[in-house]
């Protein structure tokens, strides 16, 4: 038994996962190295790029700013849990349809950020989308097609989820309010 390690249990993409980790281990390293979920990327060491963004209890957070132990007992969704090719999330679909990615390195984090954004505002203006992307960096796309991808997803989500969803989104933003 390794000393100095603590047990962490996190539900990741719907599956309960437990591991012994060093208390200083970042959530992003836990996901990547510990659980082999390498879809979540690391782009910086000053929490500015957003490549590591995941949903933590439904809210988009930079997983390089969270310790694995802080996520103990939480629910985490990574890009691997967002949707697969048989069942793409509208945001993933939007990125594909609108050419919202080039190298694809920033993409998982940017998509998770977009999911978080649309949870709070299902009908964002272009300006609101650009502002909502404040915490992410993409060096390839020039952002324009990312904006189009988010617009596409917003349209798809509001049309498929209808008025019922509008009410639910209101609740969500209440909960996730800053």
């Amino acid at each position, binding site marked *: 038994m390794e000393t100095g390690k603590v047990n962490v249990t996190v539900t990741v993409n719907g599956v309960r996962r437990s591991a012994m980790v*060093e208390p*200083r*281990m970042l959530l992003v*390293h836990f996901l*990547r*190295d510990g659980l*082999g*979920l*390498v*879809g*979540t*990327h*690391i*782009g*910086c*060491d*000053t929490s*500015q*790029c957003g490549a590591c963004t995941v949903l933590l209890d439904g809210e988009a957070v930079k997983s390089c700013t969270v310790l694995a132990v802080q996520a103990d007992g939480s629910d985490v969704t*990574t*890009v*691997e849990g*967002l*949707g*697969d*090719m048989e069942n*793409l999330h509208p945001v*993933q679909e939007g*990125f*594909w*349809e609108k*050419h919202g*990615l*080039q*190298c*694809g*390195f*920033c*993409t*998982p984090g940017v*998509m998770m950020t977009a999911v978080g954004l649309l949870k709070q505002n299902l009908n964002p203006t*272009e*300006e609101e*989308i*650009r*502002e909502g*992307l*404040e915490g*992410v*960096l*993409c*060096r*390839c*796309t*020039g*952002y*324009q*097609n*990312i*904006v189009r991808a988010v617009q596409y997803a917003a349209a798809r989500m509001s049309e498929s989820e209808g008025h019922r969803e509008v009410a639910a989104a209101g609740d969500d933003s209440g909960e996730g309010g800053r």
Partner: protein
Amino acid sequence: MPNVFGTPLKRREDPRLITGKGNFTDDIQLPGMLYMAVLRSPHAHARIKRIDVSAARQVPGVVAVYTGKDLEGKMGTIPTAWLVPDSDIKTPPHHALAVDQVRYVGDGIALVVAEDRYTVRDALELIDVEYEELPPVVNQEEAMKDGAPQLHEGVPNNIAFHWKAGEVPDEVFDRAEVVIRRRFYQQRLIPNPMETRAAVAQYNPSSGEMTIWCTSQNPHIHRFILSGVLGIPETKLQVVAPDVGGGFGCKIAVYPDEALVGYVARDLRRPVKWTEDRREHFTTTTHGRDMILDVELAGKRDGTLTALRIKNTANLGAYLSTAAPGVPTILFGLIAPGPYKIPKAAVEVIGVLTNTTPTDAYRGAGRPEATYQIERMIDLFADEIGMDPLEIRRKNLIREDEFPFDNALGLQYDSGNYHRALNKALEMINYDQFRKEQEEARKKGRYLGIGFSTYVEICGLGPSKVAGAVGFQGGLWESATVRVHPSGKISVFTGASPHGQGEETTFAQIVSQKLGVPVEDIEIVHGDTNRISMGWGTYGSRTTPVGGSAIAIACDRVLEKAKKIAAHALEVSESDLDFEDGAFQVQGVPGKKITFQEVTLQAYLAWNLPEGVEPSLEAQSFYDPANFVYPFGTHICILEVDGETGEVKLKKYVAVDDPGPVINPMVAEGQVHGGIVQGIGQALWEGAVYDENGQLISGTFMDYAMPKARFFPAFETAFTETPSPVNPLGVKGIGETGTIASTPAVVNAVVDALKPFGVKDLDMPLTPEKVWKAMQKGRREA
């Protein structure tokens, strides 16, 4: 079959990337894998007096520690691959780990290998180094002065090379009606692809084989160089570039780190991973630009330009990186006259070593700098003679009927219709209306500006003969193998190495168009030296014009053979056959045909092949272009400068680019968007800053301003398509045009906005502070 060439097909690389199933270098996990980290110099210039690694070695989980001395003589030095001719070039040795002297902040000193990422960093901190600090020099002009600190033995005054092209005698300028003289500083930039560099190496002691996965734009160049550095024959060295998260030039170079990973994996007989952190990227991955340009432009009062002369003093950093000497010389110098008929031109370049991170290619590499100076100079010239910036361009742009056009420095521009691109861009704005609004706004204390950039660039690198003549230590042809499998499915192996540009899609479109096979049946394979014939990789917007053309030629060869088999099977002569909709059709006999897939099967069964035709259906091309290609276009920027704060607000941005026939307009547009943002980044925000001690003070994303989504309006883009006669597809390049064109368009627009303040020029980046100061100065002087 419908046309696939020219359609906005969704990208085939996306499914893996949007579901988190990409395979980037740091994603690779191998059993028993160790982690490596490099201790880097905190000083810009120092002698290493003593290194004590004993404490680091004691840390549980640490497997090995190496210093420069440990490796001396056991591995080669890191070479430069561009020996600019007739320049008296000096190539001081670059050790993978510094042996007794460090020359920039970030220079590697020692490395630790441990069982996990955290331990390796812990141990690194325990290495004790005693330095004797030496005076550093960070500015290239200072470094050239007598008495300046000397970086390397045998490089007097730190001058690595001195290169010249063309000559314009003084009297041309003495006699000219108008001469504009201006100094521009092309600031230093940090490439910052979102994926930092990384490498993983695995060695098999029983076979002597090694695999290195790394973030490379050109795995074959990595293999070529690493094979020499590590002493492993190419037959036993496999280099793989898996998914690569952007490069922008900084993943061309072969760095010490990739060689070290290989060395350590072989020495310890365990797989080893190294991943750069972002802080490390800022100091150890090559930077871009950092050139001081002294430019003289002569002409007549009527706006005719007559001569251009440039002196470029380029900062190369502490060592000569792989392609570094080629950037300020060949890639910058020869295209310096741009799209204008300037009968005389001369360029002189001094390459200088300093105590800074080595510089090398960064998106555009030389061409943004060339375009910047000529686009700024022509505006300054227009201003001087009181001519409209549009008018002076119209007057001097090469006309459609003047191609191929020989520029004053020996390049032959292949094809172009510069006025058409300019006119198309003008249709997207209303120039006269804008000038009126600008006039009105000024009266109200609002400062609008418009800037033009009517650029031409040189890309599609390039003819190997020319590569040799300009000192590049490699060829610049490209390889393609088109392998049709018995079922008719096709694997295409390309020596180009895309890393975000989308060629898994656009190359499949080329093949689909040529062979009439659905895109779904075509797989594009790249990035693995064990699967792919020698090739030269992706940079210099060469992937489509050179790599794509190689594929087109290999497809033609496949078709040629298939036609022989088809004719034999249908018992007609080849000349009786047309190839359409994926089948060989006998002319005039509807229904008498054989499909490409049927022919393929026959080629493999080989039961009944025509005399002299070998079985199988596969062809290769090693395509060496006869010339470069020259994309061009017009970008127009409209913006407003806040009279109170100096902040620049982009209002409208129009880009018309001509990359020849567009294979996939969606992908091409994406390339333009990304390029524009990077170019505007240089114009307005980005800049690497060193203090006088050689410390990089813009060394994190907190201090280095990366462009963000909210800084931009939506760009309006369009294409004109002027085919190049150089290659079989007629294509040019699109990956760098945005970066090349946008920087001067924006700066020209800011200077235009600041006209009421008497501002003629400002050094980039045009931060609010700088703009505000310029306005204040104007106000005081008014």
